[in-house]
């Protein structure tokens, strides 16, 4: 066990799985970087340096740089998966799902069902999501809502280095396609990460904190903000249960409903777009399955339903903050 960054945790998961299983390979744009050029080999390791060093151990036949052709290489990864390999594709930014969405939505996600169960699609698509870098409208989205909408896709979002490693290992071993979303603001976050290999099951939420007054659901980076908010509110004798969902699909519905039945109050904190988004999905779950227990309106703490602005002043207002989370909790307790 030692302190590792979110970035290192992911790199370690990839390395361990590639050692364990020769069918695992990596593909993406500049996941090595410098391929075919005169400069340094493995110059980048992906735009966030996550795959750095893997080329050296596994060679260019398993760490595959591609031209800028997401439809082609995501589709090729799906085709490799369906014919027996276990690719991990790096899509760089989840926003780029736009340029290869057919291969994600109509091919990867549907193959197993359309083929009457004969296909397995053990494909992991890694990508960064989230705001915080003023990267503006096309590089800051958090599109887990979009992916969760598509039956056949699993959607995973770790909230710390420990989860990053364990959930990625599980995702690679899973026989279904997994959209693995890494919050770009977290790559340098540090945390305890066991050196040995371990897998965290998908669809099992983690009670990040227990409290009796209110249930707070979140995933990814938002979990940390929720815990900060809960810390602050603990000073005021408010007890929050913070549920780190870890994956949106499969979703640990039981844990959510159980907690809401105990507290009667639910706040969902999410960085995605609100309309038809993941926060709405959880609110709907409560309305459908836990309505009798609800003692107050469900509160959604999300961005407004707008495109993501560039200016730091605006982005700060846009992304849920500890303050807005606290305010949402207090409003819900007062209702």
């Amino acid at each position, binding site marked *: 066990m030692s302190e590792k960054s979110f970035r290192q945790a992911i790199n370690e998961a990839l390395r361990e799985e590639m050692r364990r299983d020769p069918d695992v390979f990596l*593909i993406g744009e500049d996941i090595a970087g410098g391929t075919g050029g005169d400069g340094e080999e493995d110059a980048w390791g992906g735009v966030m340096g996550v795959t750095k060093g893997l080329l050296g151990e596994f060679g260019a036949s398993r760490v595959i740089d591609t*031209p800028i052709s997401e439809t082609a290489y995501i*589709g090729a990864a799906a085709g*490799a998966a369906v014919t027996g390999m276990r690719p991990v594709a790096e899509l760089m930014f989840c926003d780029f799902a736009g340029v290869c969405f057919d291969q994600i939505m*109509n091919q990867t996600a549907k193959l197993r069902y359309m083929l*009457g169960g004969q296909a*397995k699609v053990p494909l992991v698509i890694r990508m960064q999501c989230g705001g915080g870098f003023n990267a503006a409208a096309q590089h800051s989205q958090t599109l887990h809502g979009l992916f969760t909408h598509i039956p056949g896709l699993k959607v995973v979002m770790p909230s710390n280095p420990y989860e990053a490693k364990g959930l990625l290992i599980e995702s690679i071993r*899973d026989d*279904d396609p997994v959209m693995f979303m890494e919050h770009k603001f977290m790559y340098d976050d540090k945390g305890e990460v066991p050196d040995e290999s371990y897998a965290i099951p998908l669809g099992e939420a983690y009670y990040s904190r227990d409290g009796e007054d209110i249930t707070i659901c979140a995933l990814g980076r938002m979990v940390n903000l929720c815990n900060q908010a809960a810390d602050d509110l603990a000073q005021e004798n408010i007890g929050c249960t913070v549920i780190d969902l870890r994956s949106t699909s*499969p979703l640990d519905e039981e844990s959510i409903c159980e907690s809401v039945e105990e507290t009667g109050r639910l706040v969902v904190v999410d960085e995605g777009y609100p309309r038809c988004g993941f926060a709405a999905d959880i609110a709907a779950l409560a309305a459908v399955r836990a309505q009798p227990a609800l003692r107050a309106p469900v509160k959604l703490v999300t961005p407004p339903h707008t495109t993501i602005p560039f200016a730091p002043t605006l982005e700060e207002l846009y992304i849920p903050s500890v303050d807005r989370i606290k305010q949402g909790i207090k409003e819900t307790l007062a209702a």
Partner: protein
Amino acid sequence: MIAITEGARATLLNKEILLEAFRRMRTIREFEDRIHINSAKGEVPGFIHLSAGQEASAVGICMHLTHEDHIASTHRGHGHSIAKGCDVTAMMDEIYAKRTGLCAGKGGSMHMADLSKGMIGANGIVGGGVPLTAGAALKARILGTDRVAVAFFGDGALNEGATLETMNLAKVLNLPMIFAMEDNGYGEATPSSWAIGGEVLKRAEGFGLSACALDGHDFFQMHEAAGRIIKDVRDGKGPAFMHISTYRYYGHFEGDAATYRSEGEAEKMQKEKDCLMIFRNKALAADLATEKELDEIEQQVARLLDDAVEHARQAPAPGAADLATDVYVSY
């Protein structure tokens, strides 16, 4: 005889292969014709696209592939499936939406697939299967096997980003992949001559693919050229592109009156260029087979299809228990 020995080296075929090729082409034709008839009777649910007329391309290529080689196909995929060795009864069951179908009744005509035969699938999305095929080729490259993968796609699909990107990817990664573009003259109602800017071979070569034009009406030419090309690709010489001229007799989909064609166009093509007719004529003229042998195959195929249709009619439909299975392997 001249045509054969000149352009197509039919003599290189041994008799077994020759008759098997005829059987597959004939099976495709019977399969399509029956669906055409039964579809008009209302027996066949869903959207149906028939490939009757295009058999020599599918069979000419797939005769060179094993079950470990992969293909992916299009919305017009029955022919490729049969050519690749998919079970005709299970295919018919699938078309009839039965539980015993190749995809358990969940896919239908547009998603026909059999991974055990190396058939990754028909595809409802134009160009959608091309990147998937690259994945099968990538597998071969990574594992260092001599497997190849063939993407069948239409003239219309040549203008989809998925196809074009994959042409480049295949070249850059040196994938053992063949782009088999079946130019049947139309993408839906629109002539390929209008919809494709520039020249096809030049375009393919512009991506660094080795490219050639083939007469998809002539099995012998198709078979000979495909053999050569597939061998080169197997040997690691890089991806290749075939521009295959062909024609579909029926409309774009079952129900299409095909008024975008000129009067008598389809009939003329069938009369002059039918690949089964050309096969028979050439094979007989070159003494590669006897009338009797070919007739017998035709009768066998007809019986096979009688049985398949009957089986499909009788087979059980999937039910409530099947609705929500096969979404995930584990959940």
